[in-house]
């Protein structure tokens, strides 16, 4: 697959995404700058598209980094407790401060995502039996433990409904003024690209990295910080999107390999394409209502994931 084919697909899908929704907007409607339709277009459709692009690219790259650093093809923000830790962080911030500000939520969520992922990597370091399937299973169990702690405290504090809102990955509520946090993931993605070679080397193991004079721990920490930043911005604006960080990097790895400098652009664009498709489907099938994107992603993603598991066990080793 060529990168320009992916980009053209992404552009076409972006265009479709802009003109699909409850209110019928045609490109010709935009000629009148002051019309209601133009206002809706600018306040809702454009931010939604931007959110999809940033979340799609961000989550896929976060997954790519985690798979490289954990040296396991099935580790991703959703299978290593990162997103669950971020959610726990948001909850703690709400329990801690009576009138919690957005900044406080961001800081707590980021800190928890970082520490949560770090703990998972520590667990990974200690277990002897590193089967490709066993490791993400541990991650999922670990994530569920974090998640149940969150639910318990949310129940005690009567915050269950807020919690379920973050569980639901959805672009429905994305509007101008509510998604701009996602732009923080742009520098994170650029930094990921600059560190691409270092991630590839680190992905071949500590001994291998040390042989080439790379400070392994430093690169590992940079990677985990980038993952935590991206996960936090996505959870706080869009919610949890499963599978994205898991399947997109794996599909790219199948046809392009694991040289991250080479695969990062493909991973980012394919992530965008995948999320756009899922979101457009969710908006079309029950038009004029919509299905949250995490549902369509989960349905399509789990099928792809199953195929990968069945066919790809050999390759993942």
């Amino acid at each position: 697959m060529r990168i320009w084919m992916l980009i053209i697909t992404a552009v076409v899908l972006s265009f479709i995404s802009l003109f699909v929704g409850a209110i019928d907007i045609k490109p010709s409607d935009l000629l009148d700058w002051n019309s209601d339709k133009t206002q809706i277009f600018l306040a809702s459709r454009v931010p939604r598209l931007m959110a999809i692009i940033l979340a799609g690219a961000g989550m896929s790259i976060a997954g790519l980094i985690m798979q490289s650093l954990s040296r396991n093809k099935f580790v991703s923000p959703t299978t290593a407790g990162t997103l669950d830790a971020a959610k726990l962080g948001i909850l703690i911030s709400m329990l801690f401060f009576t009138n919690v500000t957005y900044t406080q939520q961001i800081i707590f969520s980021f800190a928890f995502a970082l520490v949560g992922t770090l703990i998972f990597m520590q667990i990974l370091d200690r277990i002897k039996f590193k089967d490709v399937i066993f490791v993400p299973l541990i991650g999922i169990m670990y994530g569920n433990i974090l998640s149940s702690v969150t639910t318990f405290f949310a129940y005690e504090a009567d915050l269950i409904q807020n919690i379920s809102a973050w569980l639901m990955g959805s672009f429905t509520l994305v509007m101008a003024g509510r998604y701009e946090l996602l732009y923080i993931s742009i520098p994170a993605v650029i930094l990921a690209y600059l560190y691409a070679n270092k991630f590839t080397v680190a992905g071949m193991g500590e001994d291998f990295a040390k042989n080439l004079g790379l400070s392994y721990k430093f690169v590992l920490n940079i990677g985990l910080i980038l993952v935590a930043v991206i996960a936090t911005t996505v959870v706080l604006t869009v919610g949890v999107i499963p599978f994205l960080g898991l399947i997109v990097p794996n599909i790219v790895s199948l046809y392009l390999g694991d040289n991250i400098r080479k695969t990062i652009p493909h991973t980012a664009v394919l992530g965008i394409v995948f999320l756009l498709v899922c979101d457009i489907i969710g908006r079309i099938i029950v038009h004029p209502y919509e299905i949250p994107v995490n549902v369509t992603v989960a349905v399509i993603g789990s099928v792809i994931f199953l195929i990968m598991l069945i066919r790809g066990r050999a390759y993942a080793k």
Partner: protein
Amino acid sequence: MIELKGLTKLFGKKPVVEDVSVTIESGMITSFIGPNGAGKSTLLSMVSRLLDADTGEVLLDKESVKKWKSSEFSKRVSILKQANHINVRLTVRELVSFGRYPYSKGHLTAEDEKFVDQAIEYMNLTEMQDKFLDELSGGQRQRAFIAMVIAQDTDYILLDEPLNNLDMKHSVQIMKILRKLVDELGKTVVIVLHDINFASVYSDRIVALKNGKLVKNGPTHEIINSDALREIYDMDIPIQEQNGCRICVYFNSHTEAK
């Protein structure tokens, strides 16, 4: 010259390497041999700074390894650990290019590309340079990793059991290549070997360890004799000369039960 001075490594309270002092001569193949658990790999890891010694020090050009900048050190000494478990999907050429990482940090210059080309050619990998590592056989993959180390262009090349999982033909291939690296390119090779006969036929010097302690250290012909081998392996091993090579016939030796 690499000097090992009084190296000790404890795992818990148990010493796996105890007070080992060896000088590694330049321009030669030095083999580390000894029974299982003798501490050969641990010793090699300390030489290559993958492990820190608990006491003692390693000197490269009279300077402690700890004082070397890690990027400079990686231009002088390379280590290849048992690499069969690396499951990263890189092409042969990409892998070999990472050997230039200490010099270029990933942005290959024309000179780097030249080194990469030469290393690939040297290891006879030109035809398969765009194949992924997981499409290669064990022997080809091992050659690819050695090509990477050649591209790294270090004076010292350390290898931890490079013949593991290789059949006879590929083992011989790899050992001949290492010999060529020393004889033609003037490299210094330090290698952990399990098979005493490969050590006997291909190495210039042998360092023998047993239970973490140094038992023998000297030119190959001084070590490959029944008396020295009895001390190392607790086995009576007859030696036979074959075309100038000393072969240890250990397959039906009497072993002392311990």
